[in-house]
């Protein structure tokens, strides 16, 4: 965790110093809510005994986000954003994970993305270029492991995280009635779950939305697609039974997740 905060702190500091932060410029605050996004997850790994792949049924869950963007000049803005989802486990709602013929369990997957983004206007256009630095986490909550036909009422929570740098574009067309679009690709520089290999990963986010602006507020409706690919230490196990005879697999060397669905966003501008 300390490494995360060191890097984030340095990034903030460099941005603020380099852009010459002033207190008299405007802020934009956005709140995002998706009542039902589709969470899908797959994994594969180097496990023994041979049970190499994980197949997840997928499930619909809510997704929430917030972003604050400060405008420093006509051409530069700095944003800080947080978007997350995966809270169905608190309502005892799970999907099903199947590990070939070896294992089955209830599984809820979630994610959290914390981003710092520098927006820079692209010449003679409505577009902004984005450079971002972020921390991505994936969460896994498993329970009721079934191995060899026997169900073990044990649960396990695990998470993996990575730090990434990325680039993208964002644009808005129209004034009162508008269309917004955004896409960025963020590759991980550091993955904190790898002990044997130095590995990378990917976080891709794209969205399109349409909305209406009234004075300083706007409401928009859109669709977002996110792809998260992450490596981790493979073949970690939870041991089950009275003598810990059975080992349920809870980690994989490669795992991808997609989160996609419609969303509402409410924007307010503070001068």
């Amino acid at each position: 965790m300390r490494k995360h905060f060191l890097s984030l702190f340095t990034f903030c500091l460099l941005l603020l110093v380099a852009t010459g932060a002033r207190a008299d410029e405007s802020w934009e605050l956005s709140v995002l809510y998706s009542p039902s996004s589709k969470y899908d997850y797959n994994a594969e790994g180097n496990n023994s005994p041979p049970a190499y792949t994980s197949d997840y049924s997928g499930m619909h869950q809510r997704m929430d986000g917030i972003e604050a963007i400060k405008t420093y000049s006509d051409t530069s803005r700095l944003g800080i954003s947080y978007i997350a989802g995966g809270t169905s486990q608190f309502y005892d709602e799970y999907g099903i994970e199947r590990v070939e013929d070896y294992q089955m369990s209830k599984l809820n997957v979630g994610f959290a993305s914390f981003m710092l983004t520098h927006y820079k206007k692209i010449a003679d256009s409505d577009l902004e270029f984005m450079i971002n630095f972020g921390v991505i986490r994936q969460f896994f909550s498993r329970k009721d492991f079934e191995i060899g036909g026997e169900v073990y009422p044990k649960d396990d929570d695990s998470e993996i995280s990575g730090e990434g740098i990325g680039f993208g574009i964002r644009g808005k067309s129209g004034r009162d009635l508008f269309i917004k679009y955004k896409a960025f690709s963020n590759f991980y520089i550091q993955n904190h779950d790898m002990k044997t290999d130095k590995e990378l990963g990917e976080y891709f986010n794209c969205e399109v939305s349409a909305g209406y602006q009234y004075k300083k507020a706007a409401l928009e409706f859109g669709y977002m697609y996110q792809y998260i690919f992450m490596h981790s230490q493979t073949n970690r196990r939870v041991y089950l039974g009275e003598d810990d005879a059975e080992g349920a697999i809870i980690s994989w060397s490669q795992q991808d997740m997609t989160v996609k669905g419609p969303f509402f966003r409410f924007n307010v501008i503070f001068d």
Partner: protein
Amino acid sequence: MSTYWKIVLFITVFLGGSTAAHAKDRSKDFAITIKYTPSSFIQYEGEGARTTGNNTWESKIKSHDALLELEVDYKLTEKSGVNLQYLANFATIEDERSSSGLQYNDVIFKIRNTYLNYYRELEGSGLSAIVGYQYLQQSFDRSRFFLYPEDYVDMRHKEEIESHGLNFGILGRYFSPVYLDIELMSGILLKTKNRQTADISTLKKKGYTYRVRLEVGADISDYSFGLGAIRELYHPQVDGGASQDGAIYSYSQNKIDLMGIYIFTRTEF
């Protein structure tokens, strides 16, 4: 250098660049650049799901192939242009070995990577934003499989992986007539394809790439020449994990780490 300081250095260069003077305009409409890397460092790592009980978790190829890059640059306006880049390696027969030492085989490993980029200047900055399309081809011609301790599988297998991707990045040039060029790109492979089929199909057929390029050159009239360094990573995921008689000849995870120092010449028209 720790990852932490690499991040600091990266951000410092970017932010420093955003306020630096854009020393040299690319005043000509059309330019062709040829880049040659006499001896690159290419590391391939294949891993992932498979259909055999063979405990060969990872496969590695390490080669020092020469690389050739061809770049065509066309300015559309004062502040924007398109750029086509093609990279290929001169493949030779290499050893492919599992990290466990349980399998090794011969392989001819080819890389063909094409970028078609649109770039446009960032306002008040010496940098340009890049949005581009990537077409990546990897091909493997594997033969002479040896399995620990003494088995030999007389098999030859050809595999070709194709990927289509989307890239975002920045591009900048500083100083004149001796100049520094930088290019940073991050991309997603939106669709990958492996012509072979596999019994196991798990991860989505996607992937990711990144590219870092630094170049120091000198301009003499309409010509430029100099030295550059390139680092690229491609990681497509495909249906893989195939084997025959215990010999693994295909992997679902195909990661390529490529780097090298190149010489280049550029002609403007």
